[in-house]
């Protein structure tokens, strides 16, 4: 199919724009919880971007990178939320 690369490219452009919007909220966001929420959105969008890039390349290697981004993003967001809740991560 000839339109497949164009569709995948536009999906990547949409995901990059979504990352830029999350970055805008990360820089602007009035309080710390807004910044943590924006960081969470940013890593999810980055994971989807890596997945779309792997589909475009036709290589299954990028799946592992997306999995690592997902796990590390979950741990970092949970740790930041715990820090906002208690003032320390491990008590």
């Amino acid at each position, binding site marked *: 199919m000839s339109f497949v690369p164009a569709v*995948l490219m536009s999906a990547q452009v*949409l995901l990059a724009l979504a990352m830029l919007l999350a970055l805008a*909220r990360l820089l602007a966001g009035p309080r710390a919880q807004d910044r943590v*929420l924006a960081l969470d959105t940013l890593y999810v969008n980055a994971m*989807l971007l890596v997945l*779309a890039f792997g589909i475009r390349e036709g290589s299954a290697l990028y799946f592992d990178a997306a999995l690592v981004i997902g796990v590390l993003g979950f741990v970092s967001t949970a740790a930041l939320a715990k820090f906002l*809740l208690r003032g320390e991560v491990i008590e």
Partner: protein
Amino acid sequence: MSESIAALLVLAGAACAFLGSLGLVRLRTFYERVHPPTMGTTLGTALVLCGSIVYFTALQSRPVVHEVLIAILMTVNTPVTYMLLVRAALHRDGHD
């Protein structure tokens, strides 16, 4: 044929993630802003992973379902992190 289906699924997922991020920027209070990113983490991730499954199953001509790992991960992660985050926000706003 299945490649174009996969590309359209990925585009739909990317559109969902974009709308979620747009809502994150446009809404006014934090408790409103918690809602839109879940669109990207649930529907966006699910559609992109479905596209990936369809594409690699067609490419390697055998069932490829290891994307289910990320789907399970996001299903477990998203409620846990957002509940922790909203509880922290309630604590910081003094609604304990």
